[in-house]
């Protein structure tokens, strides 16, 4: 009997990098940040996650069925769940249920499936949903709870939270304005506009050790999860380092020019959605740049845009807008940063 050898071709070392696995890892990596958010902002964070997940799966299933795609295959890749979580984490903890639902529907139906589904969407679906809500419902989107532990206990029970989210009724034992307040970026923006200096603004109780009270711990949680994603190579290191580096450099320049009117770079890095956006939003493999140098440029572009929007624009934070703007630029960046094929001569 002739000996038969199975002919094997490269690659010889295979990593399990199915879409489902990568997406599940993103979900695991979000857990520390979500835990911190839930600690400081209460049950609402988790309720939003549940609403968003259910709605995203329902919308995804409906659209897949309408497009005649296999349901089990695409629902099992967790991409809809990741979109749902990314959007839900960005929403205020007491966001009414219809706000979350509308955002998710826009993200899944318009931003994802109208463009051809996973892999074809030019814009980050979660951020499209977020921006639609931010532009259309400015009041609902800027009503943030005061983080736990600032002046009095604001802990709402799960039942009260559900009531607030589904019927819009806030518990009677709190004064109407005692529950919600401006975030640290909001306050910085308003007070600087009134002519106060950064040191005066910093004395407000919403500020913690480096940035917003509570927010800095959520940012730390997302940093831990994000670094793990980079370590296991589920996210490209160039994008977060480019974005945070770009933000830090431009913030430092303005801080050195006039420290009384521009917040210090460490405040910018730890505030708002900077770290969360750098590791979880900007690194979306579908909508980000795909070449090594391109990813660096893409990241730096987001960082600079975030600073410009925060310091000179109309909104307190600008991660969503910055990511969408750089999504538009990503194909062009890729075109001009295409790596040289081995052996190819420089033109």
């Amino acid at each position: 009997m002739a000996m038969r050898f199975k002919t094997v071709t490269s690659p010889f070392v295979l990593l399990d990098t199915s879409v489902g696995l990568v997406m599940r890892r993103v979900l695991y990596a979000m857990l520390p940040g979500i835990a911190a958010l839930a600690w400081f902002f209460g049950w609402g964070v988790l309720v939003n996650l549940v609403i968003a997940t259910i709605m995203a799966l329902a919308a995804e299933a409906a659209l897949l069925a309408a497009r005649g795609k296999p349901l089990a295959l695409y629902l099992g890749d967790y991409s809809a769940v990741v979109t749902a979580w990314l959007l839900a984490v960005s929403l205020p903890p007491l966001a009414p249920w219809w706000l979350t639902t509308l955002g998710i529907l826009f993200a899944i139906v318009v931003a994802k499936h109208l463009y051809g589904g996973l892999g074809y969407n030019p814009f980050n679906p979660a951020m499209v949903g977020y921006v639609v809500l931010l532009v259309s419902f400015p009041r609902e989107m800027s009503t943030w709870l005061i983080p736990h532990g600032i002046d009095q206990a604001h802990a709402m029970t799960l039942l009260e939270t559900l009531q607030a989210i589904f019927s819009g009724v806030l518990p009677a034992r709190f004064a109407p304005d005692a529950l919600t307040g401006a975030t640290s970026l909001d306050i910085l923006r308003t007070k600087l506009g009134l002519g106060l200096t950064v040191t005066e603004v910093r004395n407000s109780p919403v500020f913690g050790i480096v940035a917003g009270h509570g927010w800095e711990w959520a940012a730390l949680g997302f940093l831990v999860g994000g670094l793990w994603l980079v370590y296991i190579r589920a996210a490209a290191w160039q994008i977060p380092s480019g974005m945070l580096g770009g933000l830090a450099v431009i913030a430092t320049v303005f801080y050195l020019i006039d420290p009384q009117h521009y917040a210090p770079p460490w405040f910018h890095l730890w505030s708002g959605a900077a770290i969360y956006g750098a590791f979880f939003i900007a690194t979306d493999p579908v909508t980000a740049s795909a070449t090594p140098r391109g990813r660096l440029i893409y990241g730096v572009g987001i960082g600079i845009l975030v600073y410009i929007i925060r310091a000179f624009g109309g909104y307190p934070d600008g991660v969503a807008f910055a990511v969408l703007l750089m999504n538009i630029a990503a194909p062009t960046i890729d075109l001009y940063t295409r790596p040289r094929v081995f052996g190819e001569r420089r033109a």
Partner: protein
Amino acid sequence: MSETGYLKILKDGVWTQNTGFVVLLGLCPLLATSNSVVNGVGMGLATTLALFISNVAISLSRNLVRPEVRIPVFIMVIACVVTAVELAIRGFLPGLYTALGIFIPLIVTNCCVLGRAESFACKHGMLKSGMDGIATGLGMTLALALLGALRESLGQGTLFSQADLLFGEWGKHLTLHLASDYRGFLLAILPPGAFIGLGCLIAVKNVFDARAQRRIKPAVAIAGPREAGA
């Protein structure tokens, strides 16, 4: 060019070659003034009037104008007509004039007016050109009204608000409130809503046309081989 029947001109202008949904000319006023039904219809009717008069004038002068200078002549004619229309709206419907603002004089730069002059009016007789102007204008009015209805109902939950701008006092009673406690969906009123809405309407029209095509196809398939054999 073969003879074109009046019915075909009408059908082309309103549906088959609709400026808003098919040819995609004159998108600037289409997107900018379609935030309510009344604004849309007002803009559409103003454009229709301008199209009709300019088409007739250009058709009448088509044998006097040398082809080398035809485009500047067209633009002069269109600019005169639009200025007259603008003055008329300002005189008779001042409310609508304030609501539409700069977009009335901008009808001059609307590509669909120059497009009809170049592709139709300078090659056809006066009656047909006039018909073409009305048909194209009605097509644009239809697009504006549909997009306006979509954006107004989603954006502020009403239909035909401010109808008094167009119809005088009694128009005030036309406003429909679709939901009693509607918060408004600002995106639909803002410019992105116009682009998204137009995209959706074009998609719906394509679905209609594809259905109609499918109904015709079997008949063609049966007729095909017999024709080849004959």
